[in-house]
């Protein structure tokens, strides 16, 4: 297929939405115009559908190498395009840890071989994610890493984080910080509060997340360096980020669909699919997260896609693995809970799920512009469906959203102009 015309669709740009045709040639967006004649090209009829820039998820776990029983780059990539994602950034907590150029190179080559979504590895900040010695950030960048993070294991030593922010900046690499003070977590498994007491499950206080957000803000501010805060879940975190941004601190931040969709009331059933780190919080946190997305304090929505084998969830709540398989439900949940409810515009949603991640990590795509790569997602916003984990192509069926009714079904996902997914 050489030329492809997406016709009659409603195109969502970061700032406006209008009916346009999009002509794709050689993997790039050749032309965007109100009316393009279908001459000498294949036509994808998008009448009644919305056309978005391909979604970008800057926080996923693809589990390869080492945990292929949970997910691998093939299944994770297939899940990504089913979820409308044309680019994903995968966290380094694999086995071996992605803390060197060889593992980065392996992931890049596997991503290319699978050839569905674009797979960008995130390198570890420290060797083995042990928080003791900087990983070879320069070499990992040259091998294709787009950022560094010790996700899953916080960098507990403040000096080490300071050194990481300074050193990574020499290479234009951003540190993505998983904020969690383990001493305050102290074995907790759910949000600490009324519901943890009611369920008799050990709580994780908001402070465990917030003290480290505070530390990263202070470090970034005093060093004049950038930092990115992963999966913000608390009201206090949003407040600190808002104040820091107002002062000009170079901090960006993300949240996930479960933090604006669920409250910790869900733990009362002891359904281990609700177990995630950080934990889902309370009503006032949900409101603060949504407000943070609305006013730009939170830059983007990521999934923290964390597929697990059913055996790792089919146990006591305390023993179950943390994490939600979220890449196939992210768009529908975000559209249904943020846009359908009038809290965000469709354009803001595109910024959160595509434009902002592209800007933060300096990736291609992120908006539909002539000359840009033809990474495109087409969705039917009126189509209503029930989330059913049996439909997931991810190996991870661990979703707390089972049976939830949502709007916005992904119809097509195009990467470099090729249709990689079709509903």
């Amino acid at each position: 297929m050489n030329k492809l015309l997406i016709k009659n669709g409603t195109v969502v740009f970061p700032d406006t939405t209008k009916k346009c045709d999009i002509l794709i040639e050689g993997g790039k967006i050749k032309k965007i115009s109100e009316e393009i004649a279908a001459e000498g090209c294949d036509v994808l009829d998008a009448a009644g559908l919305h056309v978005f820039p391909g979604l970008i998820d800057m926080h996923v776990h693809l589990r390869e190498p080492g945990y292929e029983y949970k997910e691998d780059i093939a299944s994770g990539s297939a899940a990504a395009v089913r979820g409308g994602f044309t680019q994903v950034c995968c966290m380094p907590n694999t086995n071996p840890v992605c803390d060197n150029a060889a593992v980065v190179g392996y992931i890049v080559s596997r991503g290319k071989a699978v050839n569905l979504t674009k797979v960008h590895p995130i390198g570890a900040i420290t060797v083995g994610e042990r928080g003791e010695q900087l990983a070879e950030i320069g070499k990992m960048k040259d091998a294709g890493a787009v950022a560094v993070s010790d996700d899953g294991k916080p960098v507990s030593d403040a000096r080490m984080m300071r050194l990481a922010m300074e050193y990574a900046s020499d290479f234009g690499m951003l540190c993505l910080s998983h904020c969690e003070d383990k001493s305050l977590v102290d074995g907790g498994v759910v949000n600490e509060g009324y519901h943890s007491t009611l369920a008799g499950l050990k709580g994780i206080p908001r402070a465990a997340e917030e003290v480290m957000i505070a530390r990263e803000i202070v470090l970034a501010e005093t060093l004049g360096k950038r930092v990115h805060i992963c999966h913000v879940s608390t009201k206090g975190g949003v407040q600190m980020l808002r104040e820091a941004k107002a002062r000009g601190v170079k901090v960006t931040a993300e949240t996930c669909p479960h933090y604006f969709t669920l409250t910790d009331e869900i733990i009362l059933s002891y359904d281990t699919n609700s177990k995630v780190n950080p934990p889902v919080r309370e009503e006032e946190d949900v409101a603060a997260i949504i407000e943070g997305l609305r006013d730009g304090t939170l830059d983007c929505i990521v999934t923290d896609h964390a597929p697990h084998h059913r055996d790792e969830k089919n146990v006591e709540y305390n023993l179950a693995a943390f994490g939600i398989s979220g890449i196939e439900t992210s768009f529908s949940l975000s559209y249904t809970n943020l846009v359908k409810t009038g809290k965000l515009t469709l354009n803001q949603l595109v910024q959160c799920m595509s434009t902002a991640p592209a800007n933060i990590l300096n990736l291609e795509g992120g908006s539909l512009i002539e000359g840009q790569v033809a990474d495109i997602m087409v969705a039917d916003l009126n189509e209503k469906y029930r989330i059913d984990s049996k439909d997931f192509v991810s190996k991870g069926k661990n979703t707390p959203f089972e049976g939830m009714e949502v709007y916005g079904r992904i119809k097509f996902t195009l990467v470099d102009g090729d249709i990689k997914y079709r509903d």
Partner: protein
Amino acid sequence: MLGKDLLGLYNVSAEDITLILDTAVGMKKLLTQNLKKLPHLQGRTVTTLFYENSTRTRCSFELAAKYLGAGTVNISASSSSVQKGETLIDTGYTLDAMKNDVIVIRHPMGGAPHILARHVKASIVNGGDGMNEHPTQALLDFFTMREKFGTLKGLKVAILGDIKHSRVAKSNLFGLSKLGAEVVMYAPATLMPQGIDRLGAKVAKSRAEALAGANVVMGLRIQLERQQGGLFPTLSEYNKYYGVNEDLLRLADKDCIVMHPGPVNRGVELTSEVIDAGNSKITEQVLNGVAVRMAVLFLLVKNRQGGEKNE
């Protein structure tokens, strides 16, 4: 009506609690007549599945089942295939396949009985799960209070000790609130869980406030590992500022009773004088525990679809 399982008192109605207590009255009568070969559960099997050490609760359930004529099997995690890595759910399938009618489970993690209950046909009785609930302990506490006062309505029950980690405190709170008693709690801030006030407890600011006019004074066990975990400095400091001694007990109602789920740390949460005083019901609680568990086992088995066995 009581369902298939007894997982906690949070979801059990006042009527069902009263039914259990009323049934236990008859059971205690039989016990005091030394009738220990009753026909109620003949042909039934009750298994105790304990993932935590326990003397009184496991023994109490086993005797309750035996006195009612049931066959009993005791499994403790240390000697079972759990040590070989079998999951809770697989253990449940195994016990179910062997036609158990009731499984009494104790587990160090909250919600384990609920997860088990979703996977087996046998009735599940929660014998204590982590920091969550211990319904039969609370029921025997209610039984003991009712014997003394006739009703629970209007009683002031003071609970002192490690509230944060106590499944007994929570089951008591849920049941007592439904039955019209007032629950006042006191503990060091490090041993008081968040949101307990929203669950219906009054959190006292001092020992004196907690004890003033109380009809029931309940001490909770202070586990040594809490001190080792740094939640309070030493046992002697705990006793000095948070324990109950004879002098403090005078603040309570003159007809008050002293209770404790056991095992007691003498000289920590309660002094020996308080434990051994005439108004102490700690030993009576143990007898009542057997009667209440007989009632629970009997009612659950009776409720199983027309009284059918697991077959």
